């Protein structure tokens, strides 16, 4: 591994060190702004985090050679009835969601194993979780490289641990899935020579996108809450709070889990009413098995 200096180089020609410093500067600015959204915990933080989870899961599935869209993942998650297995796509989402629901500072190797299953083990995890005072994106890049070396066929693991290390070194109260989605359509492997720069730039890009997403969802959340007064409070309240905390809902999920007093049909009517009020979107464009979200 090459040792990079993060201080700005004084020479005139851009050196790898200077390029890395510039990437670190950009990423630092984007992450600092994002940090505000993470630490202030706005009303829409649940749906925001779920959307980032969806993005990360899709990117990781693509790295593993599967090409499922966000819509495919949503279907796998929401159309699995209790007791059935969500399959590899649903598991990819569930693993990220499990990771994001914990406090990064307290997420230990044992927790990671509990989330990721017994199949992922090894001392690479212990090594990767040791922080050594490097800038956060570089610490995350190094963690991804360590995990990639030990588990080259498990790209999601490297991405998860990198984001965990980033959240820890920034002292964030929650992990934010950033790296996988920031790497773009043809993600380089963490053993590439320019990985620290690529990874840092990806964090800068992804943090910017995540912040825009948060701003967009904040507006949609305001719109949803503004129509709340026009609905029957008793039935609508749990549904609205679920819409603010989850990526998407189906009528069945509401009558099964969110508001058991509500029938499938009543839940569908409420969701369609919200679509009519322009407060919620129907996400699939299908006539049946419709899914709704902010």
């Amino acid at each position: 591994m090459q040792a990079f200096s993060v201080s700005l180089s004084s020479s005139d020609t851009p050196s790898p060190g200077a390029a890395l410093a510039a990437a670190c500067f950009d990423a630092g600015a984007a992450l600092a702004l994002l940090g505000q959204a993470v630490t202030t915990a706005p009303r829409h933080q649940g749906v925001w985090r779920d959307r980032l989870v969806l993005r990360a899961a899709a990117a990781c599935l693509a790295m593993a050679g599967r090409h499922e869209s966000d819509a495919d993942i949503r279907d796998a998650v929401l159309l699995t009835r209790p007791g059935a297995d969500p399959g590899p796509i649903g598991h990819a989402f569930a693993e990220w969601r499990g990771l994001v629901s914990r406090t990064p500072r307290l997420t230990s190797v044992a927790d990671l194993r509990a989330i990721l299953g017994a199949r992922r083990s090894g001392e690479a995890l212990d090594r990767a979780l040791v922080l050594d005072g490097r800038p956060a994106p570089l610490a995350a890049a190094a963690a991804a490289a360590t995990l990639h070396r030990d588990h080259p066929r498990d790209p999601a693991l490297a991405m998860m641990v990198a984001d965990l290390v980033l959240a820890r070194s920034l002292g964030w109260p929650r992990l934010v899935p950033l790296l996988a989605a920031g790497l773009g359509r043809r993600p380089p492997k963490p053993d590439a020579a320019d990985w620290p720069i690529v990874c840092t730039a990806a964090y800068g890009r992804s943090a910017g996108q995540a912040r825009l997403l948060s701003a967009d969802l904040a507006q949609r959340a305001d719109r949803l809450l503004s129509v709340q007064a026009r609905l029957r409070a008793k039935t609508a309240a749990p549904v609205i709070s679920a819409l603010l905390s989850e990526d998407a809902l189906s009528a069945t999920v509401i009558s099964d889990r969110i508001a058991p007093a509500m029938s499938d049909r009543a839940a569908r009517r409420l969701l369609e009413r919200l679509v009519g009020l322009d407060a919620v979107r129907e996400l699939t464009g299908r006539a049946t098995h419709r899914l709704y979200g902010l």
Partner: protein
Amino acid sequence: MAAPFDRDLTDLTPELRWREWMGRVEAAIFASTVPVPREVLATLVGHACPLDALIQDIRDELRTRPYDLVKVADGWQHRTRPHFITALRAAARPASPVPALSAADATLLMTIAYHQPVTRTELSTVLGKDVSPDAVARLRRQNLVGPGPRSPQPGAPCTYVTTPVFLSRFELESLRDLPDRDRLEAAGLLSKEPALAAVRAPRAGSGDGAAEAAE
């Protein structure tokens, strides 16, 4: 013996302690009929014991033996080395505990493995022939596949996904280890698009999965 189970064995010398831990872990795996999860093994040894190094030492000792410690779906298990498969076949009694899959069932199983979650209708399309509910039911009875998410199509047909039993039986640590996934993907054979209707089944694993041990 009322004494509580001593994990850390602080009264032993480091070397003896290590040997005792190795013995405990291997004994637990040897005595179990199913793979032993890492979490269980961790309860047998000291809190700070590096379990992977310990297991590596056990495996080093087994190097000359015809079996090995192998990590499968949900834990560690003793497995006969692939080299001795022909010998085992020659010695096998007809009453084998694991019924062999027919070639057709094996093809079906592998198609589910590569395309999951997948409905029976989609399987018929991919394989270019009608897949009967019985065929899927045979795989379900052996617990090799199970129900997955509902498919967002009229009638909400059930999709099928593989189970941990499938992984264990084919010596896969995870679905990422399915052979040739990358090449099938590159050839466009793993897309469930309608264009696939005309294409015959992708090269599926042969029936004798045990022979396909991953090294």
